[in-house]
C-alpha cells in the first residue's frame, strides 16, 4: 500500500517577505490513490515544486502531516523515504556510466549480487537502454538521458515516483513521445506518482487526476475531463486552455433546465442538474472558442476587433455587446477571412457550455 495523503500541509519559507510573505503552500489536502498518477498544475510560483519537494523530503512542512502507505513520513529524511524522483535537469551523475547510474540506488539496498544485476539489466532492457549501458550520460540524446533518469528512479522499486517538469527540456515532438512512454511505464509498474507541470495539455494527457493550484491553494482536484469541461472556477477555466467567460442573466428556470441570456442575440437553455437558479441572477458561462463557429444562419452577432491568422485556423477576437469573445474558424478557406469592424453571424454549440458555480464572486474580482 502506498497511498499518499497530505493533510493540512502548509509551508512558509523563512525570510520570505513582502508579497511572498504568505504561505508557499496553504493548508493543502490531497490524496494520491495507490497506483494513480496525480498532476499538480498551475502558474509559476503557485507552490507545485514546494508540494512535491515536501513529499520527497527536501522541504519540511511548516504544519500538517504527510503519510505514505499509512506511515507518517513528515519527519523522515529523504534517504529513508523510498521515493524515486525524475528531475527537470535529469540530474544524472556525470562521472558514472549509464549502468553505474542505474546501479547506484540498488547498491544501497544490500541485495545479493545476482539480484542486483538482474534488476539493473531488466530495467535497462525495459527502457531500451542496453546498447548505451556503458556510455557516459553526456553522450546521450535528451530523450535517452530522460529514460536513464526514469530507469534510475524506478529500479529501486520506490513507493512513490515524483516528477518535476521532467519533459520541459525536450523539444515539442519528443516531449509528446516521452510523455506517453512515461505514462505507459507508470501504468505498467503501477507506482503511485506525483507529477508537476505547468503545461495543461501534458497534465490532461498523462494524469488520473489533475490538481490545479494557485497561490499555494488547490483550486480544483478532479479528473482531466472534468477539470477541462466543468471547471470549478474562472481561473481553472482560463488556465486549462482558451476560454470565454461570458456574463449572463438567468431568464427562466424549470425542473430540469435554466435559460440564460448573454446578449441580445445570444441565449442558452442548459440542463441545470441539481443546481438552483433564481430568475434575474447573474451567472458566468464558460464557452470554449472551439464551440463557436461562423454561421450565416446563426443568431449570434459580434463585431470583429482583431484577426490573427494561424495557418490551420483564424483566431477572431470579437466584441459581443461589450464582452470579449474569442473563437477559432478553421473553415476560413471556404468563407473567407473577415475584416476588423465587420459584423459576423455566429452560432454556439450549447451542449458543452458550462455555468461556473456562483460561490466565487470575490474570486472574479481577483482574476480581473
Amino acid at each position: 500500500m502506498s497511498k499518499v495523503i497530505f493533510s493540512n500541509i502548509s509551508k512558509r519559507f523563512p525570510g520570505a517577505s513582502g508579497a511572498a510573505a504568505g504561505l508557499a503552500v496553504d493548508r493543502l489536502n490531497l490524496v494520491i490513490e495507490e497506483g494513480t498518477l496525480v498532476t499538480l498544475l498551475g502558474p509559476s510560483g503557485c507552490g507545485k515544486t514546494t508540494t512535491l519537494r515536501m513529499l520527497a523530503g527536501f522541504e519540511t512542512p511548516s504544519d500538517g502531516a504527510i503519510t505514505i502507505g499509512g506511515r507518517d513520513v513528515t519527519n523522515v529524511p529523504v534517504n529513508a523515504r523510498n521515493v524515486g524522483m525524475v528531475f527537470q535537469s535529469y540530474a544524472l551523475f556525470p562521472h558514472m556510466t549509464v549502468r553505474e547510474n542505474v546501479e547506484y540506488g540498488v547498491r544501497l539496498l544490500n541485495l545479493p549480487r545476482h539480484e542486483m544485476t538482474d534488476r539493473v539489466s531488466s530495467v535497462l532492457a525495459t527502457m531500451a537502454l542496453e546498447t548505451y549501458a556503458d556510455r557516459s550520460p553526456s553522450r546521450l540524446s535528451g530523450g535517452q538521458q530522460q529514460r536513464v533518469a526514469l530507469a534510475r528512479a524506478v529500479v529501486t522499486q520506490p513507493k512513490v515516483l515524483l516528477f518535476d517538469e521532467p519533459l520541459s527540456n525536450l523539444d515539442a515532438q519528443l516531449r509528446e513521445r516521452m510523455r506517453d512512454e512515461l505514462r505507459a511505464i507508470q501504468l505498467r509498474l503501477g507506482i503511485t506518482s506525483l507529477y508537476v507541470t505547468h503545461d495543461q495539455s501534458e497534465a490532461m494527457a498523462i494524469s488520473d487526476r489533475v490538481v490545479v493550484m494557485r497561490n499555494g491553494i488547490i483550486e480544483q482536484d478532479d479528473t482531466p475531463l472534468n477539470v477541462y469541461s466543468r471547471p470549478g472556477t474562472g481561473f481553472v477555466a482560463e488556465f486549462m486552455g482558451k476560454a470565454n467567460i461570458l456574463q449572463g442573466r438567468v431568464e427562466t428556470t424549470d425542473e430540469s433546465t435554466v435559460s440564460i441570456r448573454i446578449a441580445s442575440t445570444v441565449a442558452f437553455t442548459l440542463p441545470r442538474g441539481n443546481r438552483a437558479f433564481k430568475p434575474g441572477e447573474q451567472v458566468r458561462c464558460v464557452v470554449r472558442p472551439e464551440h463557436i463557429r461562423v454561421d450565416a444562419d446563426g443568431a449570434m452577432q459580434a463585431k470583429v476587433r482583431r484577426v490573427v491568422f494561424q495557418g490551420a485556423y483564424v483566431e477572431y477576437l470579437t466584441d459581443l455587446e461589450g464582452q470579449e469573445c474569442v473563437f477559432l474558424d478553421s473553415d476560413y478557406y471556404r468563407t473567407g477571412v473577415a475584416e476588423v469592424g465587420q459584423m459576423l453571424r455566429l452560432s454556439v454549440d450549447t451542449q458543452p457550455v458550462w455555468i461556473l458555480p456562483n460561490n466565487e464572486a470575490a474570486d472574479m474580482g481577483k482574476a480581473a
Partner: protein
Amino acid sequence: MTLVSQATPSGRTGASPAFLRKIVVDPWLFGIFAVVTLSVLVFAALPIFTVLKQAVITDRGFDLAALVDTLSKPFVWESLFNTLLLGATSAVIATLIGFVLAFSATRTTMPGKTFVHAVALLPIISPPFVMALAVVILFGRSGLITRELLGIRNANVYGFHSLVLIQSLAFTPIAYLNIRGMLQSIDSALEDASASLGASRWVTFSRVTLPLVTPAVLSSALLVFVKSVEDFGNPMLIGGNFNTLAVEAYSQMVGYFDLHAGALLASLMLVPSITAFLVHRYWVSKRSYVTVTGKPTAQTIRISGAAVVLPLSILCYAIVFAILLFYLTVIYVSFTRLPGIDNTLTFDHYATVFTAGFQTLTNSLLLAGIATPVTAIAGMLIAYLLVRKAFPGSFLLRWGTLLSFAAPGTILGIGYVSTFNAPPLLLTGTAFIVVAAMVVKNLQVGIEAGSNQLRQIDKSIEEASMTLGASNTRTFFQITLPLLKPALFTSLSYAFTRSLTTLSAVIFLVSANWTLITVTILSQVETLKIGVAAAYCSILVFVVLAILALMQFLLSSTSPKR
C-alpha cells in the same frame, strides 16, 4: 529515523525547529561539521587571539603603561611604516607589470605568448626568497654583475630598492593571473560595439576595457599588498636596515625573547592585512561588472599594429628575461664552487644536500605530503558544508577560515608557539604543529575553488542521490567529491606548492627533529653558504614542477572523455 519520529510524535514540526532538524536528519555530517569547525577555531582563531591577548596583557595583567611604552619605541613605528611603504610600492609595480603582461597576452599579437605565460608563472611555484638569493648573487658585494661585470667594489644590495625589485617580480603572477582572467571573460562584443560606434582604439581601451578590468586591477593590488606585508624571507635576507614588521617581530621573539613586543608587532601586521582583505571582499569584488562564468569567451585579438605591439613585447620580454636571469643564476651558482671568486664547476653543493642536508629535504616533502591531501579534502568538505548545508554555527567556520587566510603567517606562527606549549595542547616541537600550520594557512584557496565549482553543480544531482537512499555523507564522498575534482586538484597543487615553500609561520615551529627546507635555506644564506642554498632552491623548484606536472597528468588522464 525512529529517533526523529519519537522526537515529534504528532508529526508536527513546530516542536523541532528547522535548524535542529538539519542536525537530526544527518548526525554524521553534523558530527563532521562540528569536528571541522572546532579544529578551525582551535588552530586558526585561538592562536590569533592568543597573540592579540599577549600584545595587550603582560604577566602583570593589562598594563597600559607597558603597552604605551612598547608602542612608543621607534622601531615599532619605523617597521610599521616600512611595511606599509614596501607593500604599497610592490603592489603598484607588480600590478602594473601584471597588467602589461596580461594585456599583451590577451589582446595583442605579441609573439611567443605561451613562453611568456610559462615564465611569468615561475615565481608562483618557488619560495619567494629564491629571488633574494639571486639578487645577492648578482648584485651583492661580490656580485656577478656588480663586481665581475661593472667592477663596483662596494655595491650595497641590501635595503628597500632590492626588496621592491624582488617583491614586484615575485608577486607579479598573482596580478597577471587575476587580470588575465578578467580580460578573458570580458565579452569582446563590448569592445566591438565601442569600435562600431566610432571610438578609436585608445578610446575603447580607456573608456571600455580599462573600467571593466578595474576591479581585477584593484583586487590584484590588494592581494599583492597582503602578500608583501606577510613576506618574511625577502626582508630577512635582503632588507638590511630596512626592517619590516615580520622581521622585527621575529627578532624580538627569537633574538631578544621579548614575547610581548613580538606579539604586539605581529598584531600590528594584522591591521593592514585584515583591512586590505575586507576592502577586497566587501568593496572591490562587489564592483565587478563581469560575471565570471569560468568559461573564457572567444576572444578576437584586435591589436596588431607594431606601434602598440612592439613596445609591449619589449617590456614583456624584459620582464621574462629578468625572471629567467634570476632563476638561471640560482641554478648556475648551485653548480659553482664559490661564485664570484672560484667559478669552477662542482657537484659538491648537491652532495652536501643529499648527505648532511638530506633530512631537511625529506622532512619537508613528508610534512608537505601529509598536509596537502588534508588541506585539499578539508577544503572541499568545508566548501560543501558552507554552500550546501547551512548548519547552525556555519558562520564560525566561515570566519575562522577567512581569518586564517587573511592573517599573516608570522602571527599564526607566534600564536602556535604560545598556544600549544602546554598541556592539553602540548604540540611544540612536533611534526603535527607544522602540518597544522601548513593546512590552516592554505585551506582558504581550496574552499574558494570548491565553493565556486559547487555553485556550478546542479543541486538536483545530489538530491537524486538522496532520493535513491544515500545519506548526505555518502552523497558527498561518492557524488560531490568526484564532481569537485578540478577544484580538488587546484587545491592540491596550491597546497603542495605553498606547504613546501612556506616560511613565515613555520620558522617559529621547526625543531631539531623537524626542520624544513625553507628554514635551512635561510640559515645557509645567513652563513654565506650560497652554493648550498642555491642547490636547495633548485631542487625545490624542480620538485614542485615535477609534482605539478604529475598532478596535471593525473587530472587529465582520470577525467572522462566527453
